[in-house]
């Protein structure tokens, strides 16, 4: 009899603990961040039509599917359903990556009236000259790699925190920069998926790449660089 009441007390404590845990592990859902500028504010480099579709349809879809995948993952983890957990990894990488990458991208862009296109000063400007020789040479390199990327993906300017240098990288599909190396921090990413430029530039991706620099927000890239290289 004493044993039985002991067992009951133990079970009760366990049950209380797991409820508390479950509450603290409540699933966070993600939502579409607002653009800090109007859809048409980046013209003529990027058309308002593209910005609206890109933000309201493409990015929103990644977020919707990311939330869905996370919920399914949460369920699968609780049920101990390992094969579903593993099966969901590609959906999470793809949609979660899409959300991460596009959230950075909107901050990487700014209307000319708000500093878009203005070259970086301060420590980032100096680091670019040291690592690439000049801003023009960095732009040339990123444009070449962006144009050569087969299919869909991104071209990045990143900071390698361990080696303490700037790097130019490309990732396929929606892979975030960190999939190329755990020490890589994205400073600036350019979306080279066809949806990022097709309505305006059609098949001429190099023209898009040439023009996008007029609205690149170096202020944001500098802020990230200063914070991460401190």
């Amino acid at each position, binding site marked *: 009899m004493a044993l039985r009441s002991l067992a009951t007390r133990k079970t009760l404590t366990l049950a209380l603990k797991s409820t508390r845990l479950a509450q603290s592990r409540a699933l966070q859902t993600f939502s579409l961040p607002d653009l800090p500028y109007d859809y048409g504010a980046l013209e003529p480099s990027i058309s308002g039509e593209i910005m609206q579709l890109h933000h309201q349809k493409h990015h929103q879809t990644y977020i919707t599917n990311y939330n869905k995948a996370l919920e399914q993952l949460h369920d699968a983890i609780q049920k101990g359903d390992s094969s579903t957990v593993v099966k969901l990894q590609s959906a999470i990488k793809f949609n979660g990556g899409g959300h991460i990458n596009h959230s950075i991208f909107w901050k990487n862009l700014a209307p000319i009236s708000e500093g878009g296109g203005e070259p970086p000063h301060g420590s980032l400007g100096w680091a670019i000259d040291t690592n690439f020789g000049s801003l023009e040479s960095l732009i040339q390199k990123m444009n070449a790699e962006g144009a050569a990327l087969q*299919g869909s993906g991104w071209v990045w300017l990143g900071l390698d925190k361990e080696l303490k240098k700037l790097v130019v990288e490309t990732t396929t599909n*929606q892979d975030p920069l960190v999939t190329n190396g755990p020490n890589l921090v994205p400073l600036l990413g350019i979306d080279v*998926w066809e949806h990022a430029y097709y309505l305006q530039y059609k098949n001429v991706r190099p023209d898009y790449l040439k023009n996008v620099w007029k609205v690149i927000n170096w202020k944001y890239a500098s802020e990230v660089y200063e914070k991460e290289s401190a």
Partner: protein
Amino acid sequence: MSRETLAYHWGKHHRTYVENLNKQVVGTDLEGLSLEDIIIVTYNKGDILPAFNNAAQAWNHDFFWESMKPGGGGKPSGDLLDLIERDFGSFERFIEEFKAAAATQFGSGWAWLAYKANRLDVENAVNPWPSEKDKELVIVKSPNAVNPLVWDYFPLLTIDVWEHAYYLDFQNRRPDYISVFMEKLVSWETVNTRLEKAKARAAEREMEEERRRKEEEEGKPTNEEEDDDDLEMYVDNDNDDSEAE
């Protein structure tokens, strides 16, 4: 599919693949090879060589244009319909699966209906126990420029799901594009012709492989140390093999 889309897709994208491929091939070992051979050689078992993307995309787009016709759509008939019903349960199930494959190809790529004859889903593997059952229709999807030729399948039908294929007409709504393709553009006659060719080539290949196997066994040198009894047992085994199906 709008005129504007075709003007860009065929007139710019496809044309660029062909022009760039010609430039890459001139003066190299690839010159003079057929397009399909170039694809297999430059695929290099996955470790792709520079000319692969242009070669495969040139082929893929040819195949894509021929998969469509004005006033297409509807249902296939005859052998093709029979095989579809055998391998997918029903024509409706096939459509569902094909549309799902096309919609879930992440990033750029293609969805395919292909005829698989005694090939396994592992590159260059041949089924060691060939049978009639292992000749079947399959739906596969591939990224970027990859196509089922590299897996030694016979492609029958494809849909291009690179964004440039549908963005002017459908923007981000890829599922709508896929539906319209199935309902209004697919040329089932072409798919049928391709299936007949595929079956014929599969049969030819089987005969080739059978002949080569027989030649190998008959040409086998006898081991001097073995006595006559062993030789007889070996011959018996040979007979068993030729009766297996």
